[in-house]
């Protein structure tokens, strides 16, 4: 199934060139979790901090559905 993935800040290079947060279409096996998606994209485990699915914060064992929009952030802060 196909989902859309956006990687931010230091994770950006793991989806190839392009601006931070640019959505990229990714093919994943049905029933895959965010954790499995992170492995597929070879994201360094310590760098995966906050994950959004369709704008809602989800943990790594959240099961993805066809057409989901996923955003993944490393640890960040500001204010």
């Amino acid at each position: 199934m196909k989902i859309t993935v956006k990687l931010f800040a230091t994770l950006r290079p793991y989806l190839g060139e392009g601006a931070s947060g640019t959505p990229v279409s990714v093919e994943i096996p049905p029933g895959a979790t965010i954790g499995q998606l992170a492995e597929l994209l070879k994201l360094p485990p310590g760098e995966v901090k906050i994950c959004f699915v369709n704008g809602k914060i989800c943990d790594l064992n959240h099961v993805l559905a066809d057409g989901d929009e996923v955003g993944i952030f490393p640890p960040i802060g500001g204010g």
Partner: protein
Amino acid sequence: MFFVRVNMNDRTYQVTETPPEYRHLAGRGLTSTLVANEVPPLCHPLGPNNKLVFAAGFLSGTSAPTSARISVGAKSPLTGGIKEANAGTSWAADLAAMNIQALIIEGQPKEKGAYWGITITWEGKPKVEFFESTQYTGKVLPDVYPAMYEKYGDKISVCGVGMAAEHGYGNSGVVFNDMHKRPTRYAGRGGMGAVMASKGLKFIVLNRMGAPGMPIVDKALFEEGRKKMIDALRTHAITKPKGALNTYGTAVLINIMNEAGGLPTRNFSSGRFEGAPRIAGEAIFETNKKRKGEEIYNHACSPGCIIQCSNTIFDEKGDEITSCLEYESDWSLGADCGIDNLDDVAQLNALCNAYGLDTIETGTTIAVAMEAGVIPFGDSKGAINLVHEMGKGTPIGRILGAGAATTGRVYGVTRVPVVKGQAMPAYEPRAVKGIGITYATTTMGADHTAGYTIAPEILGVMGKQDPLSPEGKAALSRAFQATTAFIDSSGHCLFIAFAILDIASGYQGMIDEVNGVLGTSWTADDILKQGAEILKAERRFNEAAGIGKEADRMPEFMKTEPLPPHNNVFDVPDAALDSVFAEL
């Protein structure tokens, strides 16, 4: 330690030992307690009975990392309540080095339109001298700041106010120098600039030459605490060198707030901005890299900061447009106005710094004016023009300079994102409920720094909490507000919280540092209690000024208009809002 009282009625001053009841207060704790004790709550904020108080934190002027914060307090012309705004600057360290625990500006000169500056030097104790400054008024700050360094040398720190303050705007900050002698570090919120200008005071120049430095009672304990704090800041992913803050600056939050559907857009009508990636911290980093031909990491706003989150924006020729463009400014002048042109956002930020305006209040006010149809959303050149009108003090400029609430009233706008007259910062309360509780209940008017529940609600710092749920958020906001009141007294930048809320030894480090300086034996419980006492003093002042719990409420539109994309309203019951202070 000393209290220095400057009387602007007759340009005299008095230096006294710190009274015993104030000995263990600093920063916000000291400014708020002094204002609560000495300023008549019903006085006019720009009249002779208001007082402007400067106090550095317990640790300012010591070698504690990231500890050069200065608190500025008074009754606010924007909210009508008590105000504390703080900034990071060498000025804080210099005030502390001269052992000035509080600098209190009182009275008002009879001469209308006349301005003075003061210098404070060390001659066995602090010595104040006055100099005429009327010739520096009516000009942008970058044109007059260098004159202080020419006159008083390189070893000084400079505090000043700009044209916005001279016009008496509720939107006007007090500015301090950064590490490059630029007037860019603002105690921005709540109109502290106008209070200073109302006293005929344009500049406060500090020269610490010969001063004894901050006394430390228990040096071994202080060193132990300092090491724990440094370890925490150097280890935590957010605060470490080349970590998120050092690389992308605070504007790294643009994308995550947008993703969460909580980035207020076009005057708080949506939680998503399609232009977010073009103004985000990552875009700033990449744009600078392209224009300068190298990766540029951020710098410190003040001596001794090891987080170093301040960015610089360069134009196509590689020249500086502005420094620093913070998340809040980037958002208010960008997303909230529907503007996605990074160079124009940087230009707007530079103009706010030049005129002495608070960037948060400026952007949100322009967005309200856009809603009213004064200019269209997204019109960055029109926005630049409006900021010039504010600087010049034209009739429309004065309306805007009075802030978002006044602008909304003048133009008959119903969607006005303010609490207690102060505009909301860059987090949508309908998408992040805890921060909404902080906005509603803090004594300061809408203020994210007063209780930054974004840490657990969005950033996964100190656990994770669902941002869309109101459950348990009143207690969360209360705990954050009390802790923050103490951190705002410590002299540390609030950003140490990212590290010490996750790393317990860092939190203990802060307590050890303060105990080391004062010779106290405070515990974690004690500092929470102190934080609560500060909030209670502020609250008492506000109630006496006519700002009670009825003012601890969200604007009506947030309770009735669902916010895309999550289509939530602000659904925190009034009883929960009231419990924040009732159960403090």
